[in-house]
């Protein structure tokens, strides 16, 4: 029982992390049809800014967290302005390849600017403090991951339903041109989408680095792949789909950790991708996605 509860929270917290990343991808995709492969590098941006702050003596966690979030948000908005705006009207593949380029640039900026080797970032390690509730043992981080993600999702839903900009973003997912005919600035809608995706990625960065305790230039690669998979699994561009996909992925990973014998442990990621591939054979449109129809905005 105890084991099950611990593993369930574990799955939930890992899944929450993927959901945060996947949501950011899905928001940007739904609004402007861009698959932002560079999304994973937002983790790197968050991680390296934490590292830099600790290096220059600003190691207080209450200072690090907001600065980390803010930096990632600014980076996201800036990238949209510099790299993604010129390809906004181009086919999806052009946008995706641009994003690949941006990802490579950021990775190598980290590499050249700091080091090719992993660096320890103990600043947020505090979050790994364990808590005992009765006979159960959890870390603060696990609660935060599940809780903060839940709050972020609720806030996002409220924003998308209650504000004009949120409505415009939902409408843009359907028909961007008509949103412009309402007088809503396309640039504002897209910048907001990037800012939100950056904010969610910033949260994910904090959790991710708290979990790993270290950063390296290519740290964003695997998480963004998994976030992609979560998106595809849930139905690309669907926000609820991204959350569901993230959670399914988290559960799958934890189950595989438990089930896979030790000598196959290294194949965990491969196994996850394999199972996802199998799911997609049955439902190419994802779990929550609907079948594409002629004239739909497709990826």
């Amino acid at each position, binding site marked *: 029982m105890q084991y099950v509860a611990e593993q369930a929270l574990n799955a939930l917290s890992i899944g929450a992390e993927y959901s945060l990343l996947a949501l950011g991808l899905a928001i940007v995709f739904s609004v402007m049809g861009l698959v932002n492969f560079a999304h994973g590098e937002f983790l790197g941006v968050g991680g390296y800014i934490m590292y830099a702050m600790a290096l220059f003596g600003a190691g207080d966690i209450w200072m690090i967290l907001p600065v980390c979030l803010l930096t990632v948000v600014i980076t996201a908005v800036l990238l949209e302005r510099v790299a993604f705006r010129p390809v906004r009207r181009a086919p999806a593949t052009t946008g995706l390849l641009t994003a690949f380029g941006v990802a490579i640039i950021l990775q190598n900026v980290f590499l050249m600017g700091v080091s090719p080797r992993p660096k320890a970032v103990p600043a947020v390690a505090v979050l790994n403090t364990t808590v005992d509730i009765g006979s159960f043992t959890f870390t603060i981080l696990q609660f935060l991951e599940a809780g903060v993600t839940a709050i972020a999702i609720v806030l996002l839903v409220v924003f998308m*339903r209650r504000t*004009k900009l949120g*409505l*415009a973003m*939902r*409408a843009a*997912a*359907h*028909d961007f*041109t*008509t*949103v*412009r*005919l*309402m*007088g*809503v*600035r*396309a640039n504002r809608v897209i910048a907001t989408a990037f800012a939100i995706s950056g904010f969610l990625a910033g949260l994910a960065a904090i959790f991710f680095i708290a979990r790993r305790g270290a950063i390296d230039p290519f740290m964003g690669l695997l998480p963004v792949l998994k976030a992609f998979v979560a998106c595809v699994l849930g139905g690309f561009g669907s926000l609820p789909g991204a959350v569901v996909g993230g959670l399914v992925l988290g559960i799958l990973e934890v189950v595989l950790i438990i089930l896979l014998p030790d000598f196959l442990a290294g194949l965990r990621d491969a196994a996850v991708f394999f199972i996802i591939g199998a799911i997609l054979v049955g439902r190419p449109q994802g779990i929550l996605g609907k079948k594409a129809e002629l004239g739909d905005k497709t990826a």
Partner: protein
Amino acid sequence: MLEVDNVSVNYGAVRAVHSVSLSVDEGEIVTLLGPNGAGKTSMLSAIIGLVPVAEGTVTFEGQNINRLDTESRVARGITVTPEGRHVFANLTVEENLILGAAIRRDADGVARDLETYLDMFPILRERFKQSGGSLSGGEQQMLAVVRALMSGPKLLMLDEPSLGLAPQIVDQIFKLISGLRDHGLTLLVVEQNAQEALKFADRAYILSSGNLEFAGTAEELRTSADLMKAYIGEGVS
């Protein structure tokens, strides 16, 4: 109010509109007629700024708006309900209408207008919390028109408001359109359905293959069988 002066529009390498001039005065209903592919929608797109003007000028209230983007033109008081309605299917009727008023800062005025229009179009009040996609074609057209009205436009352009609607609904839509003039609105209506459009329009233009073929009063066109035959053809219903 709107002056279109020798405007040409290109779609890629193809010229869709050849040096067309037209004007719409305040309080008028002007209709732009012509067969499919005549360049009517291109004309509207150029006026609202969705496609660039290749040659010529578009003037609104005495100011050249060639270089303004679509959003700024909407802010100045031009708006359009696009062909095929383009209701936001994933948003409720209410949300569609709120988004229609996105550029307005006067919350009281918005609420007042909303009430007025919901009284005018009671079916929308009935469907207020339903998604736009669940509405029938005629209801969607009404929603699209009201959504455009919510921005408080000075000039409302309608692109094929009768497209794909049952004749009964078409009548209803056109009645509503002529009623809008009494609210002090200026209208530019693109139609293939010439007979219907000429019933309520003050003036008419006819486009054919991107060229202006006729400019005059609706009366003139309506009463001259020859003109009708020459420009519209008998088969056009």
